[in-house]
């Protein structure tokens, strides 16, 4: 479907734009947080649309399962491959073939640039969770492209 390519191209251009807008001295930090904040707002709006007709969620695990299945399918056309939790507020979502990374070469060459490509999605997950009433911190790591892991830490107030 053409719409997938559209989003991927747009996403890469956003990353390029933010990267060039940042001057050389500050490293990836500001670039990543800008992308994350963008993802946050988008995640909030997306969740409002997606959960319009779904029944209310029972608990946190239900929310995480929704994110892994329905939410991920709507955005990336596939589900999360693996969800692990320690039942104490830490969830690890593993995607073995992350859509936004498949276009980068699978070797070690671009491993250091990968975090920029994951920042928007981290924000997306954080925004989605926050609108569903779950405060969290989402980080991502890549060891082998194109697989990546998103770690969600739920913050209990």
């Amino acid at each position, binding site marked *: 479907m053409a719409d997938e390519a559209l989003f991927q191209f747009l996403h890469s251009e956003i990353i390029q734009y933010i990267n060039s807008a940042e001057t050389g001295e500050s490293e990836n930090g500001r670039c990543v947080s800008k992308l994350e904040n963008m993802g946050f707002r988008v995640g*909030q709006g997306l*969740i409002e*649309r997606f*959960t319009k007709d779904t029944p209310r969620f*029972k608990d946190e695990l239900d929310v995480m399962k929704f994110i892994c299945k329905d939410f991920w399918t709507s955005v990336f056309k596939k589900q999360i491959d693996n969800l692990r939790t320690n039942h104490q507020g830490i969830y690890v979502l593993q995607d073995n073939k992350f859509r936004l990374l498949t276009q980068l070469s699978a070797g070690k060459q671009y491993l250091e640039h990968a975090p920029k490509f994951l920042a928007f999605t981290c924000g997306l997950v954080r925004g989605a969770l926050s609108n*569903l*009433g779950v405060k969290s911190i989402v980080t991502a790591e890549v060891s082998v492209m194109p697989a990546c892991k998103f770690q969600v830490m739920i913050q209990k107030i």
Partner: protein
Amino acid sequence: MAVCIAVIAKENYPLYIRSVPTQGELKFHYTVHTSLDVVEEKISGVGKALADQRELYLGLLYPTEDYKVYGYVTNSKVKFVIVVDSSNASLRDNEIRSMFRKLHNSFTDVMCNPFYNPGDPIQSKAFDSIVSAMMVQAC
């Protein structure tokens, strides 16, 4: 036909509240405020059947001698409260449900508006017109 419609945020402050006869405004604000307690009670639903908990429409919250108050909660914990006139007894459950549906659709559109910050009072004209269409016409 509603007499007062309110949208209340997750943190329980009003995002949007509008009532028809402008002289009774304070009374409606008070009614909506007190209905929040009933909403909380329905959401937490201790010991209720599982089917109840999964629904977004909460139904009749409580009737006073002049008015009936209906509630609806979204998955993002935003609450909609509609107050209707008791004398207008012909309003059926289905009609109230469809009013809430329209409100929810309109609210989703407001949320997706990139110029709207979640948590701000709702100032969208489109939302306003949907709400006016549902209110009793002031004579």
